[in-house]
């Protein structure tokens, strides 16, 4: 007998390379020698990985191999009459004979071929190794797989001698089985279908009688429970009886050598592409709307690192999306690097706290890119992101809601899941829209070990693909197919980077020219940007497609948006025309703009609207002025205006009787007086303000006559004054005591009265009690610079080596490492 190591040693180089290609995890890191390789190939982790990739049928054949093993003659005899464990060799012939059972004719022939193919696959993976007539099962398999291969129990000989005696006598076994009352027979059939163990019912349960009968007849064998003592908790159906009962289904149970069929309506690919491209446009448009909202009002991140439920609801409501769609688009945008966190100024260093989420600088570039490029960026991020968005809104195992962007929705297996599901769609004929149930069923067959319990995730992938426009009407779109191929190829390239060390191929479908094939394919489906619009008598402006950036900017100014989508509808209103005029357009410019951009004649109503508003626009003028000068004598004002000495005042004639100056009234008054005019000033209501020359005086001061007679004599203290002083002193004292000061032990770095440090356990006890009492505590601690510090806080919780406590004065939550706390004293 040869070990796996010996076997591997004897292999030619190509065979070893083939093994490495099938099980790449074996060479990471590169094993030191072939013995190490053999050990690794039989390790639980590596075997589990290999098994994860196998389909249902191949796993059944592996079970057949396990079941057909002979007792291991090489292992030492366990002694005591115990049979040797059946971990020895088997052969291809035996496996085939066992798996095919008693089928005949064509069924037998195809069955044999399928089983042989499965055995070959297992041998290629070295889950089975050795020559055809002396196959061995790799050591890790038994540990990783169910202890009941193919749902069959252990051989009777291993369970119970009496049961072994029963199965050794086929005639008696058959008689006993036929004598079984119907309830007992039903239990047998259920156990025979697998798994072969069942819980023993309580004595008063309905099924207690039949089970007791079966145990009595030795058809079932009680198995000691894990607890050991007392009644055996379970019963097991011996393998031989199970096989006998499976006469009709076959020894391995129902077998499906071929994958289950995936069917669905076949749609025209153009229709599928059209629906998908429409959805892709929507996804991009909605993402932009969401990001614009976040740009206008960044959302705060929770301390736990997610976006609050209310913020998500607000975003969804404003954009008119449902919450799950908004969550998906935001997660995708984040994964695509379009959203990022920003630390708020003055924030503490704790992760997640005091941060906002808002569009990144990358968003600018994305927004200006062509539609197909923008979609591709999102779709690729979706394929690759390790987030399971379907979890958002559900509750985690601690019954807390999983929020957007929170770590709880992180799933490393998410890309593989998407790859598996889209792979199914990819393998179908173009245009086929399979039922989700079929996809789930196929995956359950193709990778049963990986798919179990992920059915919900698989359905989510289908829903998300539809939402993003990767699929249309349930079928993979042509550009979706290209994107998927690109993505899978990219993955492969990473894995085989040694084949292309210079990365030459990476550029083949890169950004050169019109982008990747997927982008080019999508681009042909999307509407081309237009540079014109249609004008109508009801003053609506219809842009029959996505507007060019220049047109979009013009429309944003001169019209109000009404409806968006593949095309956009805007309406020219009095307010929008006014806005355009305010922004510097003249009425003529607007006429020219509409004439130039419109494919239809400009309606007369619009011409009138623009003229009407332009005529009145600017009918009232506003400007700053420091002061005005008015006079009923127009000639006098003309003289002032022409006076060279007053040129510095910057006078301007607003009306025949009014001049203004940017300077203040005082300066104007003085300058005019100096120039020999006789102005008077008036107040806001027009009344004349009289001005007389001001007399300058120093502020008032007292006379010495009012002073006390002797400056050195103590002031006389009256009773009320004394009482006042006492009151003042008391108040000061109380205030000083009230001023919070840390007690001595805390301030002294934990030294009790200058003595030894406060025992750490004592500080902890104080803190724990304070948490329970919600009491305030002085905490002394060593800060990050090694200095001692103290703080009056209210502890909130202690855990994971940290004290969390709030400081009521600053209303901040602090976290102290417990090992840095030197002392804790209750605040009395």
């Amino acid at each position, binding site marked *: 007998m040869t070990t796996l190591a010996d076997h591997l040693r004897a292999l030619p180089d190509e065979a070893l390379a083939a093994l490495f290609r099938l099980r790449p995890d074996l060479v990471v890191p590169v094993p030191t020698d072939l013995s190490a390789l053999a050990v690794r190939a039989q390790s639980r982790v590596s075997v589990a990985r290999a098994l994860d990739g196998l389909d249902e049928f191949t796993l059944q054949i592996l079970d057949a191999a396990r079941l057909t093993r002979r007792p291991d003659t090489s292992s030492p005899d366990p002694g005591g009459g115990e049979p040797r464990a059946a971990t020895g060799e088997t052969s291809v012939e035996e496996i085939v004979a066992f798996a095919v059972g008693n089928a005949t004719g064509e069924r037998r022939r195809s069955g044999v071929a399928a089983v042989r193919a499965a055995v070959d696959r297992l041998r290629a993976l070295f889950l089975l190794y050795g020559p055809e007539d002396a196959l061995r099962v790799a050591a890790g398999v038994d540990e990783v797989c169910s202890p009941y291969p193919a749902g069959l129990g252990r051989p009777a000989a291993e369970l119970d001698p009496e049961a072994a005696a029963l199965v050794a006598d086929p005639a008696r076994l058959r008689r006993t089985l036929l004598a079984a009352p119907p309830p007992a027979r039903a239990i047998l059939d259920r156990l025979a279908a697998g798994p072969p163990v069942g819980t023993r019912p309580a004595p008063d349960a309905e099924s207690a009688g039949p089970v007791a009968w079966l145990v009595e007849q030795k058809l079932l064998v009680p198995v000691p429970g894990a607890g050991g003592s007392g009644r055996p908790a379970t019963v097991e159906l011996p393998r031989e009886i199970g096989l006998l009962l499976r006469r009709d289904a076959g020894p391995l149970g129902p077998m499906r050598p071929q994958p289950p069929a995936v069917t669905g309506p076949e749609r025209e690919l153009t229709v599928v592409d059209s629906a998908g491209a429409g*959805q892709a446009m929507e996804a991009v448009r909605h993402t932009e709307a969401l990001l614009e909202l976040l740009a206008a009002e960044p959302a705060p991140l929770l301390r736990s690192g997610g976006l609050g439920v209310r913020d998500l609801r607000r975003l969804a409501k404003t954009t008119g999306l449902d919450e799950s769609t908004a969550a998906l688009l935001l997660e995708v945008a984040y994964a695509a690097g379009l959203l990022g966190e920003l630390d708020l100024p003055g924030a503490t260093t704790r992760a997640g706290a005091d941060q906002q989420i808002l569009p990144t600088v990358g968003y600018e570039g994305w927004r200006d890119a062509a539609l197909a490029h923008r979609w591709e960026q999102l779709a690729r991020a979706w394929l690759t992101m390790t987030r399971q968005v379907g979890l958002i809104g559900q509750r985690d195992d601690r019954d807390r809601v999983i929020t957007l962007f929170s770590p709880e929705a992180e799933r490393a297996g998410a890309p593989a899941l998407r790859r598996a599901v889209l792979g199914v769609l990819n393998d179908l004929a173009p245009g086929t829209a399979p039922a989700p149930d079929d996809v789930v069923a196929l995956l359950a067959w193709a990778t049963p070990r990986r798919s179990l319990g992920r059915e919900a995730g698989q359905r989510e992938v289908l829903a998300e693909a539809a939402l993003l426009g990767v699929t*249309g009407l349930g079928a993979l779109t042509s550009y979706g197919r290209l994107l998927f191929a690109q993505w899978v190829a990219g993955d492969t390239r990473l894995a085989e980077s040694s084949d292309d060390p210079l990365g030459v191929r990476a550029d083949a479908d890169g950004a050169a020219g019109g982008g990747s094939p997927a982008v080019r394919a999508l681009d042909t489906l999307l509407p*081309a940007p237009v540079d014109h619009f249609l004008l109508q008598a009801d003053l609506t402006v219809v842009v029959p*497609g996505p507007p060019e950036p220049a047109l979009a900017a013009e429309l944003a100014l001169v019209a109000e948006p009404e409806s968006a989508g*593949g095309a956009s509808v805007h309406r020219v209103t009095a307010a929008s025309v006014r806005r355009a005029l305010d922004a510097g357009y003249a009425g003529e410019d607007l006429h020219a703009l509409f004439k130039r951009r419109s494919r239809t004649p400009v309606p007369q109503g619009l011409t009138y609207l623009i003229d009407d508003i332009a005529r009145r626009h600017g009918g009232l003028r506003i400007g700053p002025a420091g002061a005005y000068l008015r006079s009923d004598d127009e000639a006098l004002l003309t003289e002032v205006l022409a006076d060279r000495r007053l040129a510095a005042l910057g006078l301007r004639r607003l009306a025949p009787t009014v001049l203004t100056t940017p300077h203040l009234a005082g300066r104007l008054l003085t300058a005019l007086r100096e120039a020999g005019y006789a102005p008077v000033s008036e107040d806001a209501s027009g009344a004349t303000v009289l001005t007389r020359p001001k007399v300058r005086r120093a502020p008032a001061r007292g006379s010495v006559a009012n002073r006390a007679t002797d400056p050195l004599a103590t002031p006389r203290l009256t009773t009320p004054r004394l009482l006042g002083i006492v009151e003042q002193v008391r108040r000061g004292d109380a205030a000083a005591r009230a001023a919070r000061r840390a007690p001595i032990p805390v301030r002294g770095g934990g030294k009790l009265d200058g003595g030894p440090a406060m025992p750490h356990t004592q500080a902890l006890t104080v803190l724990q009690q304070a948490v329970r009492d919600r009491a305030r505590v002085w905490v002394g601690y060593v800060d990050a610079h090694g200095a001692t510090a103290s703080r009056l806080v209210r502890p909130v919780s202690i855990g994971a080596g940290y004290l969390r406590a709030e400081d009521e004065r600053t209303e901040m939550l602090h976290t102290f490492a417990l090992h840095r706390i030197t002392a804790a004293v209750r605040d009395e």
Partner: protein
Amino acid sequence: MGVSGGPLIVQSDKTLLLEVDHPDAQACRMAIAPFAELERSPEHVHTYRLTPLGLWNARAAGHDAESVVDALLRFSRYPVPHALLVDVAETMDRYGRLQLVAHPTHGLVLRALDRMVLIEVAKSKKLAGMLGARIDDDTVVVHPSERGRLKQALLRLGWPAEDLAGYVDGEAHPIELRTDGSDGRPAWELRSYQREAVEQFWAGGSGVVVLPCGAGKTLVGAAAMARAKATTLILVTNTVAGRQWKRELVARTSLTEDEIGEYSGERKEIRPVTIATYQVLTARRGGAFTHLDLFNARDWGLIIYDEVHLLPAPIFRFTADLQARRRLGLTATLVREDGREGDVFSLIGPKRYDAPWKDIEAQGWIAPAECVEVRVTLTDAERMTYAVAEPEERYRVAATARTKLPVVRALVQRHAGEQVLVIGGYIDQLHELGETLDAPIVQGSTTNRERERLFDAFRAGELRTLVISKVGNFSIDLPEAAVAIQVSGTFGSRQEEAQRLGRVLRPKADRRQAHFYTVVSRDTIDTEYAAHRQRFLAEQGYAYTIVDADDVLGPPVPRVE
């Protein structure tokens, strides 16, 4: 780029933009008309909207989601968002999951084609007391008196029921259309769209026919009566409209004057065909509706609601009790200012026929109209009055400016020899107009007798010009009015604008063009309201021409340089 180039653009807010100049536009319009509601039809791009009601209307007419989706995809220029298609399919799927049917033993029952829906709605508080005993998992007894209210409530829950419970035949009464001219009148026949409307109404059992003013809604009603051959109750907006109905029925059908009763404030006759006004039905004494018995006075086989968009709320309540009788709604628009389109759908019935105005005009059945806005510039004195007027007075000041009078006179003179209606909202102004134009005035205080006399004279051509107030807004038939001049209105009511335009849209004997003038004061709130009213007409495809008052008044006096 690979754009298919169809005429339709599907927007994500569920509006559909149809480019009318596209070669496929007509085919597309035919394909989407059954399920999308035409919202605006200006000259280049028509806007349709997908609403749940519209989709259910289509379902009721036998269209399925597949055909709707197919039409959208076939004509769409750009990719249609997948989510929208899914939404359309899901919405349409909701109609008819519940059916009201007549059970052979239990009478009226609600039957579910989807058990979960029945369980869902049965739990709703809105249906409390409407559902009776459960017959089996999918069937629940419904009290016959709750038939209408149940349909209303189910529509609000988003699960509109299909009413298959049938109708009572009512008391039979022979009614025939008289098209042969045997009584000395010229022979005539129903127009094609009128015939279609009646066919579709009859096939659906109950429902609403939407036709523009002047397209002959009365004849659709008469044809429906001839089809039902049963006693009929006709509900109209006012007495004059009622008499108009009576005149038309006597002229066009085998009915005689004696067979048609008038049930109004003045007369209370109940005959095989009875015409009642909304006003008398909704009149209350001591908080109770006193004329409700009319609905049960005879075993009516057909109830016709004229101007459904104006149906007062109490009538809906009475109608809820009449679900076993055939109901025909006639209107120019389904848009109600109070937003109760859902009640029309559930209580009177789905829309059975609809034709856009412009199409009917193109067929030559209604007179093409030229809409002109004449802008007058206020005198400085008037501007000053306007400037200092209180905000609530400003519209009146602007609308009743005397400067408008010479313009109106000039317009009337321009159309000398044609029948001209001058419409205004302010009595003082009407009197001024009456004096200026030397024309009689019809206003709220004019007696019915006097109105009839004036209208008859106008109809006969003895009277060329008539000044009318707001009373003329609805349902008076002035067949030969070729010109309408409105000088003031009820602020910006679109409803009113449509009705007033309807006044001149009746086909003229010589297919003359109709003219619709609006005289507004420049730079005042009058212009703003006018713009609002006209938006409706622009959306209906009537482009407005704006002219200056000076152009109407003739060349200005040459200035001396």
